[in-house]
């Protein structure tokens, strides 16, 4: 297991280099001059040139990329907008996004797995059809629109929950529901199909023939096996959640890394945008590594050996 983890962590290096290169290129290709934005509309050509000089924006691109990499890994990459080290700003935002994403994934897993299991066990009944409709609804709903609808009902009409910001647990509910809905739908569909597959297996008949109660047959013998493919989807969904966080955080003014990314793009804060993208990519890789390790817990046939 140790060697497996070490190998996977080593693979992080080329992945992050690739992500940083892509992020750098995209930013360079996108229109807008950060020096112009920072200096303001009224600034003279000389002022703008001075800013370029100060932040190294007039260097050749490979030199700029190298400076970015050095800054990123030494921790003294400086944000153009805040004029402070990028990490000092990204990390607190990242913590907020993790709170939101974790809550969303917990909701999505609880709701998705429960719905999927009920669907499979009550296949071709109204429960199954209803669950299918709800799951498709969840998957197809654009997250920003769904978020606005939730806000309209629970904050504006009913005034039960705050419409935005961060502070109490109540602030967390609407954004995490909005963000988790589509993942819940996908997890429900995945759980349903893997559960249907597992319920047909011979060992389920064996379990029933032992005299076990249906709930034990389904909840212990079937679910444990059905969760193996579902867990893969959960890991990948985490990536979806991080992408969805950009929209959700904007809608609910949640001070997370997604909203930071949006404001950084708007203010052409290149180092911040690039650093955020690389950090989010690293996070995604870590989550999927955790998922792969979870397989070994769920399925005794899987043991990792380093090669």
């Amino acid at each position, binding site marked *: 297991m140790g060697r497996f983890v070490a190998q996977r962590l080593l693979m992080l290096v080329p992945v992050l280099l690739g992500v940083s290169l892509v992020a750098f290129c995209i930013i360079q290709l996108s229109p807008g001059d950060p020096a112009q934005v920072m200096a303001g509309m009224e600034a003279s050509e000389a002022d703008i040139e001075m800013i370029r000089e100060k932040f190294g924006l007039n260097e050749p691109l490979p030199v700029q990329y190298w400076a970015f990499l050095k800054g990123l890994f030494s921790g003294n990459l400086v944000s153009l907008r805040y004029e402070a080290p990028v990490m000092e700003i990204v990390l607190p935002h990242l913590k907020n996004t993790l709170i939101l994403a974790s809550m969303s994934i917990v909701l999505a897993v609880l709701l998705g797995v429960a719905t999927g299991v009920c669907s499979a066990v009550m296949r071709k009944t109204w429960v199954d059809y209803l669950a299918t409709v709800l799951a498709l609804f969840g998957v197809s709903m654009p997250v920003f629109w769904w978020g606005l609808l939730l806000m309209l009902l629970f904050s504006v009409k009913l005034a039960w929950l705050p419409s935005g910001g961060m502070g109490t647990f109540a602030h967390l509910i609407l954004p995490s529901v909005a963000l988790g809905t589509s993942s819940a739908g996908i997890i429900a569909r995945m759980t349903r199909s893997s559960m249907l597959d597992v319920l047909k*297996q*011979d*060992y389920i*008949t*064996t*379990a*029933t*023939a*032992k*005299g*076990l*109660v249906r709930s034990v047959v389904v909840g212990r*013998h079937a679910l*444990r*096996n059905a969760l193996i493919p579902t867990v893969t989807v959960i890991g990948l969904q985490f990536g979806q959640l991080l992408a969805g966080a950009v929209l959700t955080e904007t809608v609910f003014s949640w001070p997370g890394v997604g909203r930071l990314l949006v404001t950084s793009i708007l203010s052409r804060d290149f180092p911040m945008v690039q650093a955020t993208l690389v950090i989010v990519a690293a996070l995604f890789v870590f989550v999927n590594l955790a998922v792969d390790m979870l397989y070994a817990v*769920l*399925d*005794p*046939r899987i043991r990792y050996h380093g090669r």
Partner: protein
Amino acid sequence: MGDPILSVKNLTVHFHTEAGVVKALEDVSFSVGQGEVLGLVGETGCGKSVTALSVMRLIPTPPGRIVGGTIHFDGRDVLALSEEEMRSLRGKDMAMIFQDPISSLNPVFTAGYQVEEAIVTHEAVPRREDLIARVTGLFKKVNISDPEKSVRSYPHMLSGGMKQRVMIAMGLSCSPRLIIADEPTTALDVSIQAQILSLIRRLQMEGGSSVLLISHDLGVIAAMAQTVAVMYAGSIVEKTSVKTLFDRPLHPYTRGLLGAIPRLDVDQERLSVIPGTLPDLFNLPRGCKFRERCSEALPLCAEGRPLLAEIEPGHEVACYARA
């Protein structure tokens, strides 16, 4: 022998599929005496497994449905029991050993745990050490190598033969009065087959359980059973003692089956076979189901379906040509 432990009368089971209704069983009747081994023999798809699953009430419903007949276990009407009562019978009074040990054990639980589960479902075993000791004892009894280690092994770490021994240990764990063994050796290779069969036989004699042994292999039946029922296309066509069946088979199908066994002492150019194929269970022909393949068919055979009748003491045959 006293009252039979299991008595099945006129059992009829249909499967409702999108392609139509499959008449899997039709008027199947047999009984298993206390301590008796009844062999149920027939080719693939003739309804042997459906019979076994029906007795345990494990037919997947839908699509399967028991449309007629009765099943009595130890004097109780199995088809009238509540699901709760049925559950207390399964695994405790009647246990099943399945055909494929590889797919019949849950891959994510240890072999020991799966046997423990069968015990704690039916009995209160307060101390965990007692439970483990009991499972280890069962593993020893069924000759599993290194029982202490095997209880902690996952199924994929055990061989096919060892897995079937685990299944047998599971079946025996609560000393059932009836063991249903559905082709227990089909998935195993020949040398292991013999070991497993003699194990089942030994345990049956020690424990005095009755056994419903299902097989397509007449050799297995000859070695294990006292009484045999031959099934064809969802019906029993002949039922008698093992000795009589092999000495003096009466039904043309049974004769065909026995004749198809290649003999070492006779020089045969070609294997003898039964002409034709199994009838379509979606669309059974009128009259006797074996008529189209039968060399002795009478005009009467196209009219009605022959029922099982005692032609000589202890020898029942469903055939107009023998009546």
